[in-house]
């Protein structure tokens, strides 16, 4: 019997487990930490967790990158059948495209968040989120 690491359920799902753990850590940071910077870091980690989850959705066991590189298509005519056969071993490209967008958006949000933190520090002279609540009720 050809036993590989991937036969273990826990290893097989390690991507998901890691992603969920990263999400939890990020959320914990965002919800509990007092420092605004840490809150932003927490949100950013949360974002990474989601991105990890997104990318692992598209994974296919021992799949290749969805690129028809010269080495791959070297000596076969580009017929529909050949391409189909090649594409069966490739991982799903769509989550990769989506994650690219998600990362960029996450980056944009983080940039805005950090600039807001600078403003808040300027205004309140503190980064403690519990002290920044002039607006309430």
């Amino acid at each position, binding site marked *: 019997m050809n036993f590989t690491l991937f036969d273990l359920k826990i290893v097989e799902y390690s991507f998901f487990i890691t992603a969920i753990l990263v999400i939890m850590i990020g959320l914990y940071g965002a919800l509990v930490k007092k420092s605004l910077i840490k809150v932003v870091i927490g949100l950013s980690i949360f974002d990474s967790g989601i991105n990890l989850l997104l990318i692992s959705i598209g994974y296919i066991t021992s799949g290749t990158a969805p690129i028809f590189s010269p080495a791959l298509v070297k000596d076969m005519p580009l017929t529909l059948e050949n391409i189909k056969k090649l594409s069966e071993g490739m991982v799903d490209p769509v989550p990769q495209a989506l994650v690219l967008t998600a990362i960029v958006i996450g980056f944009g*949000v983080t940039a805005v968040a950090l600039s807001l933190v600078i*403003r808040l520090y300027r205004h309140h002279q503190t980064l403690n989120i519990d002290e920044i609540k*002039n*607006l309430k009720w």
Partner: protein
Amino acid sequence: MVGSPVLFIAVPLLAAFLIPLLGMVWKESIRILPGLVLLYMLVLAITLLEQVMHTGTIVEILAGWKPPWGINLVFSPFTGILATLMILMGFIIWIYSYRFKNVDFEEAKKYFILFMMLVTGSVGIVLTGDIFNQFVFIEITSISAYALTAFYKHRDSAEASFKYLMVGSLSSMFLLLAIILIYSQLGTLNMADIASKAHLMKPEFKILAVIFFIVGLGIEAEIFPLNGWVPDAYAQAPGPVGAAFAGIVVKAGVYALIRIIFTLFDVSGTHQFLIVIGLTTMIISEMAAIRQDRLKRMLAYSSLGQMGLVLVAFGIGTEEGIFAAMFLLINHAIGKSLLFLSGSYLVYNSADKYISETNGMGKFLPVTSFLFALGALAVVGMPPFSGFWGKFFMMSAAAHANMLLIIALILSVSLIELVYYFRVINRIYFYKKESHITPKKPTVNAVIAMATLGVIILIIGFYPDLISGYLHQASQALLDKGKYIQDVLSTGQLLTH
């Protein structure tokens, strides 16, 4: 053929990229160009709307790929009306804020770019037929909104914006989670395709996706436990931006939520959930509104309450209910924007915006005060202004669905709303002006913008037929899920193969 729906996105984006360049050459252009773009969009929207009402939904394919492979925009009667409403509000608010930050070129440039993108993002949310694309537009809208909320430098606006950002980024994460779940099951992102394949999803995935969508979009649609940021953001943002939030952004959020619930999945219980959550939102925010001593916060809470009412109306789920919801939506967009626009002149002087600052303004700012009162009457649903019809249709839809208890609850909450609006009107007209306040006369363009909104309120109030035909078609379009799927999936020629 004036154009196609994609121009609603492409033209303002092009203009947004152009503004920094043009601004170097001709400074006034940064103010004029957004207006021209919005005007063009308005003309386009009205033309397309007229066309759609007669010939049926326009589905525009992008990049030459037929759905579900490419992204597509859907200009149906339902989305078309919302898009037109948003663009109209955007244009009016542009008129209002034409002289905004008159002295500071850099700030004005950023304001106009961000504002235009706020409108464009909201229109994109409404028009797009792809969930991931919707997510991108939600982010465009949100980032513009964060920046606009924090626009004033010497107030607590950064605090409000940070709260908005915290909750907002959670919202986008949950949206992504929902998209991941859907993609993992169906391998597609197109709304119509998802809707037609929804039965293939495992139920636990479907329900989890619905929950994450409700949370993610609920933050944009401002439902109860997720709306803590709303009063802060509305109150701290500049007046026109507050109006845009109430008139444009929240509408997009509600649209997205409604689209998910009505079209994407056929999960039972979502309609009842909408009703419950709408009622909770309405009750709690109206209760909070009556205890406010700051005008803009009061308006913000009131806006929450109104949106709760809209959700209840959507939750009824019948054609009548959706019609009523659309009516309420339009009324709220116009009325609440008018309140924000005129209200910000009534409390122009201080950053605190206490309601007591409006005392006696009726004498000094007669037109603004009058329009404020008009907006308040429209929002509380006094006949013969536009709000009444929305309220009436809503009530009669609920009665048809045999939800008498809900009617009673809504009406008793409306009583609270009535009280605080009339308290403000009383102050404006019958109190003595506080001595340290110097009234600020509205500029001409502001008066024009506010008066336009006032006239719309009166016209709809006296002649609701003007829009009710469109709204009936719109509500049918929303309900007819099969037609939506067919319209989208049968569009266009597959340009390859």
